[in-house]
């Protein structure tokens, strides 16, 4: 199977650019902003201001490229590592931060933003995207659902059932697998005996595409086609986006235990952000001052979100009972009284 690439590792364009320089600049800004968020979260976690964090450095093109192919009202069902994609589809930074701070209020996406809170159970969320796209079709809408997941998710039974349902019912679903090389410490080569994860698509009767996930243009082209197919009722597509997790699995992970720095260094040379910068520079659409401008703006945007999140009034403990149902059950009401009575004693 051949890997689709439009921007070479050195940034030279092969074939036609799927988007114009202006749009490219917009997405470059988005990738930089995502990277700023990523760096900030890693720093905050070290300071104890966030719980565990899962960095996505190196996967910006895969995530922004996927989200950029969506319509604002399309569904995005993604994982704990997909903050950049979720934000680009409308999920505010402050919500993402609150989740990482251990505050359930982060889960409330603004009305109209069809992005589910990130899914932590590996593999289980793919079928949600199938059901969501399906429901749109039954309701006569042409919204589609895109789901992001990792290489590791392809080992779960739920991956299989989701792919099979999507194929059988021809749901408007786009499966984007970010093959970032690892499931925690498990290299992808030891997760499957198949040559490529994309080889799995044929078993579900759907097209499977292998794409350079660090190539923004290739991502936009490939995901764009899949989104169009889904919207036109031509059914689901499976996309394997080959990328690399430059950071640790999470802030508690020691990647040194399972991979060596040379490989990481090699992947840094294939950095998705650098690639677009080189391209823009060659197209006279980039200069130093503009980048420092947007970098500053990105930093400010993230800082503002952090400030907002940290300024939020304390979370009312008894809200835990209210979040379970539209109306708390009799059991929850009794338990709320018990919490009032003595639950707070240890707080």
């Amino acid at each position: 199977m051949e890997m689709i690439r439009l921007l070479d590792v050195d940034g030279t364009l092969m074939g036609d650019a799927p988007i114009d320089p202006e749009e490219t600049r917009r997405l470059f800004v988005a990738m930089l902003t995502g990277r700023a968020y990523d760096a900030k979260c890693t720093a905050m976690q070290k300071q104890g201001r966030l719980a565990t964090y899962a960095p996505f450095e190196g996967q910006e093109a895969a995530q922004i490229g996927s989200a950029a192919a969506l319509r604002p009202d399309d569904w995005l069902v993604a994982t704990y590592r997909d903050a950049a994609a979720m934000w680009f589809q409308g999920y505010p930074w402050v919500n993402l931060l609150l989740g990482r701070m251990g505050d359930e209020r982060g889960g409330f996406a603004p009305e109209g933003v069809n992005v589910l809170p990130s899914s932590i159970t590996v593999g289980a969320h793919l079928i949600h995207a199938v059901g969501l796209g399906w429901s749109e079709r039954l309701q006569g809408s042409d919204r589609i659902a895109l789901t992001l997941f990792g290489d590791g998710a392809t080992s779960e039974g739920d991956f299989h059932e989701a792919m099979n349902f999507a194929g059988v019912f021809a749901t408007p679903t786009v499966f984007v697998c970010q093959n970032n090389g690892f499931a925690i410490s498990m290299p992808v080569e030891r997760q499957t005996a198949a040559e490529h994860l994309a080889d799995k698509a044929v078993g579900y009767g759907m097209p499977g595409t292998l794409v350079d996930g660090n190539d923004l243009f290739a991502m936009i082209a490939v995901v764009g086609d899949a989104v169009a197919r889904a919207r036109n009722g031509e059914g689901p597509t499976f996309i394997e986006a080959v990328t690399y997790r430059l950071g640790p699995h999470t802030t508690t992970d020691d990647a040194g235990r399972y991979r060596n720095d040379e490989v990481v260094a090699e992947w840094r040379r294939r950095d998705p952000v650098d690639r677009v910068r080189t391209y823009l520079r060659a197209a006279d659409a980039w200069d130093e001052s503009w980048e420092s401008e947007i970098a500053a703006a990105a930093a400010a945007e993230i800082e503002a979100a952090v400030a907002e999140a940290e300024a939020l009034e304390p979370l009312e403990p008894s809200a835990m009972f209210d979040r379970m149902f539209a109306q708390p059950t009799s059991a929850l009401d009794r338990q709320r009284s018990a919490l009032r009575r003595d639950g707070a004693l240890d707080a």
Partner: protein
Amino acid sequence: MAQAINEALDIALASDERVVVIGEDVGTTGGVFRVTDGLQQRYGAERVVDAPVAESGIVGAAFGMAVGGLRPIAEIQFLGFAYPAYDQIVSHVGRIRNRSNHRFTAPLVIRIPFGGGVGAAEHHSESSEAIFAHTPGVKVVVPATPYAAKGMLLAAVDDPDPVVFLEPIRMYRALKQEVPEGRYTLPLGKAEVVREGSDLVIVAYGAMVREAQRAADVLATEGISAGVLDLRSLSPVDEDAVVAAARRSGRVVVVTESHRTAGMASEVAAVVQERALYSLLAPVERVTGWDTVVPLKRTERFYVPGPERIAHAARRTMEG
């Protein structure tokens, strides 16, 4: 009861465009118990969906549909085959409202035939409802009669949150009962006094309600007046109704065919001693299935509680 449920599904499909039925063999054949008979013919294969053999997929897809604005009614063919779907239920169906702080909800119903007493093959007599009652974010209800089944199912479909709707297999064809025409609902979360009694109360649900009534008949011939309380809801348990019944007579027998350890009978006993200890004249008697696999046909009757076992436990409470 199968007929009453079929009517409820028919009404739900007819009255709400958003209602979709999905499950294994629910369409062309109308389900292995014929509960969905005729529905696909009436509402089409887009709304009454025959799914591949994949329980996690069925529940997960129905979950996505519910979040997307539909009102899916998923069927798992037997409770013994619901376990592959358990992760979807506990990790997502019961959590999306909490996870999204009310932004997204999953108003779906998961219908599951359960229970033994028919000499079925392995896995076809499961009664593991306690596991679902122990699962946050889902309501768990069990009708004991056709009347209750229709009203509770329609209430479950209307409910803004997920409901696990357990259908006692033994009752599908038992009890020819007149069921009101058309639409009516019964509140979820409420127990029902099905028989008054002054000496003791037998708490049961599903197919065990009939066994409890039979036991009460036996006891009546001995001059023991036993009431019967149908729990109807396992999550939440209608504690007030249970406690009131316990206080009235001071004697309680709780019946379930589920396994004993950490089962529904334990929950009821715990609640009674917690809130009615000083009224108790005898320990709450748990009449349950055992902590074994449900035996196959030849010895199943030694596992599933029947009237005599219940009556025997009741007599013990009278000695207390």
